């Protein structure tokens, strides 16, 4: 399955690049908005259907209960800590590096927001870092799952509710659907607030 995904991704990137830079044959939004949203909604419906029909899945979820929220919270703390370590190793503004990591893979949010708060260089970093996180999750989900049952959900971060969800469900199993979606949903909700909050931290954190 990963072979097909790599091919589909590569063709998509080439097609998007060609359409954008060699005179658009059609508006980009036809694919990146309409086709994207249509396939995402269809997938969510189908995966939801499979989840609802699975008796074991709901029982597992009921046993976990409110503790499910520990999943996105630990992912958020871990991501920001990773940003702190990365910023320290690279010798860049620590607040900027943590803010970029608090995008949790959502590059279309983090790029513009980090650019606004920390300058163009961090905007570019916000774009690239979170894009690579999403890409890595899609490509390495089958390996990540060996590190832990829900490792792809952590890696996917905020994207676990949409772009990386089908790959996560494929490798973590059908019963991971709600945990993955909820984790991605919570992380998407808090990402803009955490990024803004980090930007208002005292300058003590920066070099």
């Amino acid at each position: 399955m990963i072979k097909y995904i790599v091919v589909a991704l590569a063709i998509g990137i080439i097609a998007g690049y060609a359409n954008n830079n060699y005179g658009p044959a059609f508006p980009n939004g036809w694919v990146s908005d309409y086709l994207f949203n249509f396939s995402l909604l269809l997938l969510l419906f189908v995966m939801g259907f499979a989840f609802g029909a699975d008796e074991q899945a709901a029982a597992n979820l009921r046993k976990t209960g409110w503790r499910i929220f520990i999943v996105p919270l630990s992912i958020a703390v871990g991501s920001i800590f990773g940003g702190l370590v990365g910023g320290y190793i690279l010798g860049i503004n620590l607040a900027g590096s943590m803010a970029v990591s608090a995008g949790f893979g959502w590059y279309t949010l983090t790029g513009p927001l980090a650019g606004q708060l920390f300058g163009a260089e961090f905007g570019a970093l916000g774009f690239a870092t979170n894009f690579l996180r999403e890409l890595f999750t899609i490509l390495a989900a089958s390996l990540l799952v060996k590190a832990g049952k829900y490792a792809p959900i952590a890696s996917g971060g905020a994207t676990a509710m949409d772009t990386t969800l089908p790959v996560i469900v494929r490798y973590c199993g059908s019963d991971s659907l709600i945990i993955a979606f909820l984790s991605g949903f919570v992380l998407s909700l808090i990402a803009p607030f955490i990024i803004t909050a980090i930007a208002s931290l005292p300058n003590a954190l920066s070099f």
Partner: protein
Amino acid sequence: MFNPMSMLDLVVVLVAGIALGFIFRNRKRVNLEKVNLLTILVLIFSLGFSIGSDNELLASMPRVGMNALIISLLTIVFSVAFLEIARKAARIK
């Protein structure tokens, strides 16, 4: 940029799917695997398309790519580690 309305749409469709799956639980199983893979590929294609048509993203890669790679790998490693520790501590199966 930040659109809570479309996030709500996703929730509505997901809940509708779960409800229908629950209702039709005991009917004969339809094999949705093929539909699933095709739709995943369409989704990944359109994700690739938005990446390829995003000039700002493409321009940022050669400039900050190495730093971005280091930070993104660290965020992944630590988020996985923190999640696994929290899962063990809270006994989430």
